[in-house]
């Protein structure tokens, strides 16, 4: 028995001493306590909980199509994570649930009609090339779900484009027509705001209900898993640009509300742009990121060939994130003015 052990043994309370082993004392650098309520896995579970309203709406509206997309994307994401991590010879990371989050987000951003291999390929590309190649969780530059989706969007333009949304047979009649944003863009038809908010329209399976996304998003902000700065600045920027266009075109507010509640805006603002690994670290940086994303969304929506721009806007701003971080190094308290 070492000196230290003997001391610790004799330091035990007398009634505990006989027959007991001395307590195992360890040392470590400070701080010696940490917030047990916060860990990486808990953050990912929060995101899944936040996504649940959108999942429920999608299952109600698209039934089998939604279930198929979610299962395909989640299974493929988990399998991709497993195999790519094994290839890198790293320890097993499935239990942090981050691959599951990527799979669910990817599934929810798919059109219901896409064949199974589209979702599977998007998951493999998203996890493999979007995430693990950069070093796994937290090291990726681009949002993995959006990398996967962008890949299949370009590779299978037919299956992922506006046309793909028009042959789904779901529960509600409205969901078999053109998506609200493409109806507006190509035919000048606008959808009523109430169905857009509730989600009784066509679109990617998880993005149709603005209400469900807001509900889940507010939960994430309440849990501090997502920052409030990013969704707030995206939504305000989009609203401003849409309002200017609205006034210039004399749409009497319909155009503004349509751009706020249709398409992937709410889903993207609360669940995609807020991905911590690919957005800036400081509050100021997050504001810049959100404003930039909002501007790009409207530029793509108004001037490009695509009716929706959330995905590309987020990917472009992801690439800007390291630069934004460098611009927004905070001044420490007491720093003398340079």
């Amino acid at each position, binding site marked *: 028995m070492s000196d230290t052990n003997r001391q*610790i043994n004799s330091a035990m*309370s007398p009634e505990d001493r006989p027959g007991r082993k001395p307590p195992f004392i360890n040392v470590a650098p*400070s701080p010696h306590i940490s917030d047990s309520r916060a860990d990486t896995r808990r953050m990912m579970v929060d995101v899944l909980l936040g996504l649940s309203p959108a999942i429920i709406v999608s299952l109600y509206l698209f039934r089998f199509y939604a279930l198929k997309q979610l299962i395909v994307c989640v299974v493929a994401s988990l399998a991709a994570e497993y195999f790519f991590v094994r290839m890198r010879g790293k320890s097993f990371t499935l239990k942090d649930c981050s691959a599951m989050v990527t799979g669910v987000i990817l599934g929810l951003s798919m059109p219901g009609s896409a064949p199974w291999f589209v979702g599977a390929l998007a998951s493999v590309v998203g996890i493999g090339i979007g995430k693990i190649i950069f070093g796994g969780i937290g090291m990726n530059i681009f949002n993995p779900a959006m990398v996967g989706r962008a890949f299949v969007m370009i590779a299978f333009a037919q299956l992922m484009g506006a046309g793909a949304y028009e042959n789904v047979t779901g529960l509600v009649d409205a969901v078999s027509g053109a998506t609200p944003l493409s109806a507006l863009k190509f035919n000048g038809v606008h959808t009523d705001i109430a169905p857009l908010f509730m989600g009784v329209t066509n679109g990617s399976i998880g993005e149709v209900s603005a209400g469900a996304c807001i509900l889940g998003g507010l939960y994430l902000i309440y849990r501090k898993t997502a920052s409030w700065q990013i969704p707030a600045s995206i939504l305000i920027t989009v609203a401003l640009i849409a309002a200017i266009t609205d006034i210039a075109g004399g749409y009497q507010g319909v155009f503004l509300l349509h751009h706020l509640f249709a398409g992937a805006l709410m889903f993207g603002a609360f669940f995609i742009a807020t991905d911590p690994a690919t957005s800036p670290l400081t509050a100021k940086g997050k504001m810049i990121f959100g404003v930039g994303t909002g501007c790009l969304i409207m530029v793509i929506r108004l001037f490009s060939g695509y009716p929706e721009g959330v995905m590309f806007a987020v990917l472009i701003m992801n690439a800007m994130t390291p630069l934004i971080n460098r611009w927004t190094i905070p001044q*420490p308290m007491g720093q003398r003015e340079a």
Partner: protein
Amino acid sequence: MGLFKLKGFPGTGSFPHGIHPPDNKALSANMAVEVMEIPRTVTLPLLQHLGVPCKQIVKSGETVGYGQMVGKGEAFVSASLHAPIAGKVKRNTMVTLPNGRHLDAITIQAEGEQIPPERIWEDVKFTQWPRDGFSDYGSMDIVKKIQESGIVGLGGAAFPTHVKVMPNDTRVIDTLMVNGCECEPYLTCDYRLMVEAPEVIVTGALLTGRAVSAKEIVICVEDNKPEAIKRLQQATRQTVVQVAVLKTKYPQGSEKQLVKAVVGLNIPLGGLPADAGVAVSNVQTMAAVARSIIKDVPLTHRVVTVSGQGICNPKNIFVPIGISLAEVVDFCGGLTPNAARIISGGPMMGFAFSNLSAPVTKGTSGLTVLTHDDVRKADETNCVRCGRCVDACPMNLVPTRLALAARYNNPEIAAQYHIRACVECGSCAYVCPAKLNLVQLIREGKAQLNAWERR
């Protein structure tokens, strides 16, 4: 933040960022201070303060009386050492303090007639401490007496107090701030002193205020200590001393955050509180100053908290400096079987150690014993860049960047992100969901930066 304003002070009563760890003060907050018996021996390391070690002035075999100087602080930034008990000087020993320093120490074996420690504690609790009639004491008299008494900051850093209060023509002190925040979880020794002996604190503050010619004297307490606030408000009645009630948040007791909260000024990086016209000192230090000047006794005893779920009977105790920590633990009923980590100080900034033969020093504010459940840590994952450390950092830094710069040995990035501004308060590591050991990595980063600049 901006909406809140501290009544009567320019500050807001708080500071940006920070965290709210469970304080666990209930374990020992209501335990009145107990006095320990005189130990058989005391061990006095020659360096218990920040600065140059003091020089031993007694020889082995010599007999010393209570309060006799045994080590002299000859350099300016140094502090003298006094015998807390009467006895005989034994052969010097080497001790390893919880902070890892290996030091030469004077050992004194109790011998002859002793002053009962109860009487010393009664002296502190004495209620008739003078409030005026200090005109006989010149500023330099007070400073000299503080220096002779070996008084250092008793909040933990143990910076020699006479250096802080030395009048200086270039840095005028407007405000003396007496720090009673005690924001570290578990620790309650300052709280007990404020509740049981507020008068001695007020007298010490008046004397120290006189030494630095402060226009204002403020005792700062967090709002989770209503009893202490009440007692201090009673004790400061009809004096110029004010009581500032601050919002409870970690690390409110940190010098820079305290000055920000009350005076609203930032202490410049690499500067001292004096640069903002402020002197900051702990409540126990104030008690030591009052005792030294009014009663002519040096710093020989202090109040220590022994707490945590790993200790059988958490207590606040009045102990002679130099008593071994093993005796202190024994006095509190010993360790529980699930004790896992013994910490000198509190759990946020204290040092973990295992050698219980180390003595209580001037800077020992407490002993916290945590259990396996308290210190259990989840596995470390990659940084997910969630930015929670950024929101927690009271110095407005980006801890994750600093830590990763250190991990990849990149001092340039660390310097760019102001690594030297870090006060190592531990807020970032407390909130980190990836369970990264941010503070330790930042410490390494500072060392790397120093080495890189020396190249």
